[in-house]
Structure formats: C-alpha cells, structure tokens
C-alpha cells in the first residue's frame, strides 16, 4: 500500500516583484524522517517554509498534506492540520511559566486546569523525551530550555509535522546533542521533521534525507547515508560564475588595522566572536564570508566602537582603539568609514534628507555651536552627481529612495570623509545589477587610493572576483584567511561550514 508522504510540495513558485524566491521547487517529506533543507542565504528555504506555515501562498504549484491538496490563507489552518513551525526568534512571554505559555490561546473552559495540563505535558515529555519544568518562568530559562518549550507548544497543539528554522544557531554543543536526541525520538514516534539549516556537519549527523536549494530552485534530494559533505557543498554553491568584476593588484601595502585575539559576547552572554585575529592592509579588499550569524555584524560594530570588547586588541595605525566609542574615534581623527547592514535604522536617519544625513559625520568636527550647512549642501550635490543618485532632490527624506540609492548615499558619505579603513556590511544586498557594479567600482577606486576595505558579503562569486583575500567566519571564529585568486568555491564552502583551511593567506 502506497503511503502518502506527510508533505508534498510540487512545482512551487513564488516571486516578490522581480525577485524569484522559489522557482519550480519540489519537496517531499515522509513521516518518520528528519529531512534537512539545505542552502545558502537567499536560496529560498524560508520562503518555502512560510508557505507551509500559512504566511505566504504560492503563485503556482500545489501543496499536499497526507495526500490531500491544501490552500492556506492564514496561519491557523496549518496548525489545525498538525503543522508546527518553530522560528528562530521565539514567541514566548517572559514572565509566564512554561505551562502558561503552552496553553496560551488554547483550551476550553473558564479556569486554567493546572493538574490536567501538567499531566498532558508530562505525557508529551515522556513520549518524546523532552525535559521541562512546567512551573519555571521563561525568563529564567536557558535558550535550550526555551526551544524545548517551543517544541512542546507545537506538540500540544497536535503537530505531527515539525518545521524548525536554524534550530542550532543559538544552542551550546550540549544542548545540540540533547536536541538531536529529542528529534530522533520524535522521528521514531512517526513525526515528520524538517530542519532548515546550513550547518553541514549537523545535517550529516541528524538527517535522513537532504534537499538542497540554490537560488530558488531544487538542486537535488539525496539520502544522507549515501552522500558526502563535498557533494553537498558542490550542490550548495554550484559552479563558479564569471562576473567580470575588475580586480587590480596594488603592490604597495601598509598595515592599517591589526585585530588581535578578539573576544566579544553577545546580549545572551555567549561568544559572538572568539579568538579573532587578522590584519587589514591599505590597497586591498578583504572579504568576509560566512553564513548569517557567524559574527559578521559583531565584527563590524566592534571595530566601529559600538560593542564592548571582552578581550583582545584592535590596532589602528599602531594604536589600540579597544574601549573607544564612535565619538572618541571621530575626535581622535581616526578616519574610519562604516556602512552598516541596517541602512535606514543605523546608518541613516530615515526621515531626514540627504543634507542632514551628511551632517551626521561632519558636525562633530565643526567649531562652535551652530551647524554650518552651506558646505554640506555643496557636498550633497557633489555626491549625488558623482554617484548618480536618483532622488527628487537633496531635501527629500532618504526613506523615499530606492535601496540602491540609499546605499549610494551611505557610501558617498563615508567615502567623502576620506577614510583610511572602510567597512561595508552587505553593501549590495537588495541592489540591482547596475547599482551593484557601480558599488564594486567605487570600492575598487578606494582600494586604488590606498584604503583598506573590509567587505562583508553573501555572494561567493562576487567575493572571489572582487576581493584580494577572503576571511571566513564560522560560529564567531575565523576558520580561514585565504587568497581569493587561488581558493576554490568549494573550499570556501567548507570553511563556512566549519571545516578547516587548506592554505592560509595571512597577508597578500
């Protein structure tokens, strides 16, 4: 007797404007298996899963749950059909207990039936091997416990299909072990589990089958036991693409930034960065590769002086700038440009115009108490012209501009202050091809002027062509610093997944 798969997604396509998030994607997940959904950032994994949880609906294609076709128009329906999604960011109420969070919005009757509830929770705990103290308050829980709570929550609502988005991103190694034990139990009880991840070693350890997505398409579905890590990497990153980005070699190089054994904690007291050391030279572009959340954001913000450093030193031109905040850095005359990932939330004031956003970097070094605007206005015109920024005018609020133009404003401002070190985080994210190439051109120009550029990027093809060297981060640590000209895409893929470098390039 042919058993229906728990989930079958056939020929699913979904586009957002011009961007094709999913194109003819097929996915089949069976009961009693752990199925990994693997792919780089932007491969389309989250979009696909959001269609299963009822947040999006597909433009074309069909979804079958246990053989029956379904159309979801709200998150409530999938829950009724037994699909439980556990997001990366937990949706829990801190001051309530585990028990209370579980029955939130559920149940019948007037009173909270404490005893009956505890019994049910115990039943679930025992069946799946989930350990939880029902009366513990969420704010007292560790991250691992909170995740267990989220799992029990969906199980309590009757989920037999579990979707977990990057479940190990926030866990310690011991907690990961525990989680995997739980997942195996659930699988043995007949659940279907989908894990969205890019951690290859974990995929090899826990999954039964793997579906690899790349740039919105299904590349292959394989059985874990019959696959090698190298196969997976090749499927994930694909063959190299020639993008024809110019790259010069600047012979004369001066050491500008030396980072030594950096340790930085995040808000949950875990290591965002540990033992990070590298050098940045003038006249080079040092790329930073890594899966999202490997510490790129913290790296940028730490160098910029926004985050507290636990241990380690950062030498700018020989002086240790650890402990200095952005104000100190500006006052000391250290010329560092920083284009953050969050353009409108951190780099710019969205409601202000170009002129007033330019003032952000300029005003501290102006004497007196009054703002001098005239030279800024001239500067604004100059930057708009030079970078070909499309805007209704220099007095238009920047939030009205398109993504590419917003980025140009940021870049224009930072470049204008003649920085010696330029840090850019995902500068071409969301930009069209033309705008992207313009940005590469500008960065190359800076390189020619002897600026040291730190380029955090997502697209490996771009990194391989644009950068002189590439540093790879994994889980807050440097897994390799390599020469971009000689390294292969697969080697970088391996380092991004936690593997170790074949050859190191500490300087150019």
């Amino acid at each position, binding site marked *: 007797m042919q058993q229906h798969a728990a989930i079958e997604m056939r020929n699913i396509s979904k586009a*957002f404007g011009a961007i094709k998030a999913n194109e003819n994607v097929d996915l089949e997940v069976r009961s009693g298996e752990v199925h990994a959904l693997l792919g780089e950032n932007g491969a389309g994994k989250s979009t696909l899963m959001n269609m299963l949880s009822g947040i*999006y*609906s597909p433009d074309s294609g069909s979804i079958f749950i246990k053989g029956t076709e379904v159309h979801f*128009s709200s998150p409530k329906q999938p829950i009724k059909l037994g699909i439980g999604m556990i997001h990366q960011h937990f949706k829990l109420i801190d001051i309530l207990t585990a028990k209370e969070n579980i029955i939130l919005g559920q149940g019948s009757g007037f009173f909270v039936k404490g005893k009956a509830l505890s019994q049910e929770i115990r039943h679930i705990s025992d069946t799946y091997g989930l350990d939880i103290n029902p009366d513990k308050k969420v704010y007292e829980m560790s991250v691992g416990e909170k995740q267990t709570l989220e799992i029990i929550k969906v199980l309590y609502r009757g989920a037999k299909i579990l979707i977990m988005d990057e479940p190990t991103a926030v866990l310690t190694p011991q907690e990961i072990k525990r989680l995997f034990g739980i997942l195996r139990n659930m699988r043995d009880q007949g659940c279907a589990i989908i894990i969205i991840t890019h951690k290859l070693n974990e995929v090899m350890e826990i999954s039964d089958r793997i579906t690899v997505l790349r740039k919105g398409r299904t590349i292959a579905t394989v059985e874990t036991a019959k696959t090698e890590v190298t196969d997976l990497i090749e499927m994930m990153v694909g063959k190299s693409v020639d993008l024809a980005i110019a790259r010069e070699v600047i012979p004369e190089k001066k050491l500008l930034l030396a980072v030594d054994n950096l340790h930085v904690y995040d808000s949950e007291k875990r290591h965002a960065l540990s033992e990070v050391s590298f050098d940045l030279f003038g006249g080079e572009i040092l790329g930073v590769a890594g899966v999202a959340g490997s510490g790129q954001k913290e790296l940028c913000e730490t160098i*910029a*002086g*926004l985050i507290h450093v636990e241990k380690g030193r950062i030498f700018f031109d020989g002086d240790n700038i650890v402990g200095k*905040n*952005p*104000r*100190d*850095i*500006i006052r000391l005359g250290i010329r560092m440009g*920083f284009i*953050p990932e*969050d353009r409108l*939330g*951190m*780099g*710019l*004031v*969205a*409601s*202000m115009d170009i002129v*007033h956003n330019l*003032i*952000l*970097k300029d*005003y*501290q070094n*102006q004497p007196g*108490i*009054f*703002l001098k605007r005239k030279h800024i206005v001239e500067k604004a015109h100059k930057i708009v012209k030079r970078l070909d920024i499309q805007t209704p005018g220099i007095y238009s609020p920047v*939030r*009205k501009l398109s993504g590419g133009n917003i980025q140009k404003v940021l870049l224009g401002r930072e470049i204008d202050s003649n920085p010696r070190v330029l840090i850019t985080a995902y500068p071409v994210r969301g930009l069209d091809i033309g705008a992207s190439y313009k940005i590469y051109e500008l960065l190359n120009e800076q390189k020619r002027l002897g600026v040291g550029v730190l380029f955090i990027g997502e697209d490996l093809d771009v990194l391989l062509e644009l950068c002189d060297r590439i540093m790879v981060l994994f889980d807050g640590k440097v897994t390799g610093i390599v020469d971009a000209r000689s390294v292969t895409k697969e080697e970088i893929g391996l380092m991004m997944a936690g593997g170790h470098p074949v050859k190191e390039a500490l300087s150019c």
Partner: protein
Amino acid sequence: MLKIIKRDDVSKRQSILIRFMAIALSLVFSGVFILILGYNPIEVFGNMVIGALGTEMRIKETIIKAIPLIITSLGILVAFKMKFWNIGGEGQIIMGAFAATYIALNYADDFSRPVVLILMMLAAMITGGIWAFIPAFFKVKFGTNETIFTLMMNYIALKWVTYLQYGPWKDPNSQGFPKVANFEVNAVLPSLFGIHIGWIIAILLTVLIYIFMNYTKRGYEITVVGESIDTAKYAGMNIKAIVITAMLISGGLCGLTGMIQASAIERTLTVSLSGGYGFTAIITTWLSNLKAPFVLLTSLAFAVLLQGGSYIQIAMQVPSSVADMIQGMILFFVLGSEFFIRYTIALKTKEVA
C-alpha cells in the same frame, strides 16, 4: 476585508488638508453637540470669537492667556522632539514659580527692579530645569518610565507649594486667608503696550527655540536621538548629555512660565497659577507638529478658545466647561486624523503577496 497599508509618502499639502478636515469635522460635531445642549452653535462660536478678539481689552486677555501656553509649549516641544514624554509641565511651572517667589519675597528690596526680575527668571529656570532633570536622570540611568515619573513630580510640586501657602509662607497680613504675601512692585514684570512683557519673552523664545532646533548642533542631536537612537550612537553622539541638556531646557522653559505667571499675573505664589497650562501645552505642542512657529499659532488658537470660553460664561450663561468639551472633541478628531495621514486603507485582494 480591509487592508491597512503604511503610506510611505504623504505630501505636506495632503497632511495639512487632512488636519484641517479633522478640525472642521470636529467643529461641526461640536456644533451639533451644542445644539443638543440647547444653544445656538453659531451664536456660541461667534460669541467665543468676539469674546476673544472683539475689543482691545479682550485681545489683550487672549494674548495674556497665550503667553504661558507658548513658552510652556516650546519647552514641551524640545522634550517631545527627543521622544521624551514630559508630562511634568505643571510641576516644572510651579517649581519655577516657587523659586521666583523665594527671590521676590527675600531680595526684592536689595536690588534694582531689572536685577530682581532677572534673578527671579534665573532661579525659576534653574529650578524648573532641575525638576525635569530628576526624571530624565533616572530614565537615562535605569530606563525608568518618564511619563509616570514626570506626572508624579507634578503632584509633589503641587503639594509642596500648597504646604508653603498654608504653612511657612502664609502671609500674616492676609487675615487668616491662606495665601502667600504679594510681591512688591520690584518683583512684578512691567508692561509694554498694556500687556506684561511676557509677550516679548514669548516671541523671543519662539525665535530662539526655532534657531536652536534647526540651526545648532545640539538641536540637531536632539532630533536625531528622537528619530533613531541607533543612528545617534553610530554617529558617536553622547546620548546621556543630549537627554540631560534637552530636559534642562524643557524644564527651564516651563519654570520660566511659572515665574511669569507668578510675577505678572498672580503677583504671588498660589497653587492655581499653573492653571492647567502644563497639560494644555502638551496639546498645543502636539498640534504644532513640533515646529516652533506653529506653536505660536496653536497656542494663540487655544488662547482664543480659553478666553472665548470665559466670555460666553458671562455673556450667554454658557458654562466655560462647554469650551473644555469642544477642546476635547477637537483633540479627538485631530488624533484620529493622524491615522489617515500615516496609513491608507485598501480592499484586500484575493491573492496575498
């Protein structure tokens, strides 16, 4: 079903239009309301305008009511621009008046009039500033909620002055009636053109605050902190210093209002001298969209409402409470209209993106 979409672009013209429509609608609504209460709305509105602007005397009264509103609103504006919800205007006014009174009662004879008045103003601004600084300090240090804190400071200030009025500062010459001694002439603000010179101060401050917010570095920093605190940190701004400065100015201006009301209007210290201006100013500031020149407009408009309300009480036996209700209704409509400025409503189409 209706879908609510955030508008990312609304022209100035559109937003002013929507605001005007809101006010017009609220007047119509109030008119109907007045009709139900048994009065003729046209008569009521008309008389309010006549009562506020009809004779020279009345115009002066209106201006006298506008002055404390303007100055307090400017103070609240600076705080609001930073998204610091200073509800403590009343208390800051009262404490300013308290400080000014202290000078007036003890030093009025020791210096010439201009010096006494300047000392009073300084004392008032410093004390008002400190009164606002206290909640600001705790907000910066511990993240304490400023709305409630500043509100409580109002009551502490009120009770303090009540205590003084009924206790240590009670005037022995007042025949048992609890009031503080009257100021001597040296401590009273002089007049120009029949109105106490508070009007000059009000206009001067409007210009100064306008310049401050739009042309100085600190004003710029205050705006950035209010708009996007992450960007402020990124740009290396000293957030703590900015908040403290803004609140010292905010409280200082309210304190100045207290001095003016004590010196020019009441000529003594009394619990009622803040007259609700601390709260009404929040409204006028809100309506001005946090722009100093508009503060002049909204304050004058509200002063007309206040003065008109007093007038119709006498002329038509319409209680001034009607003016209060109209104020409340205008506010409701304007508050509601903001929604339509920020969002548009569309019909939900079948396919969701």
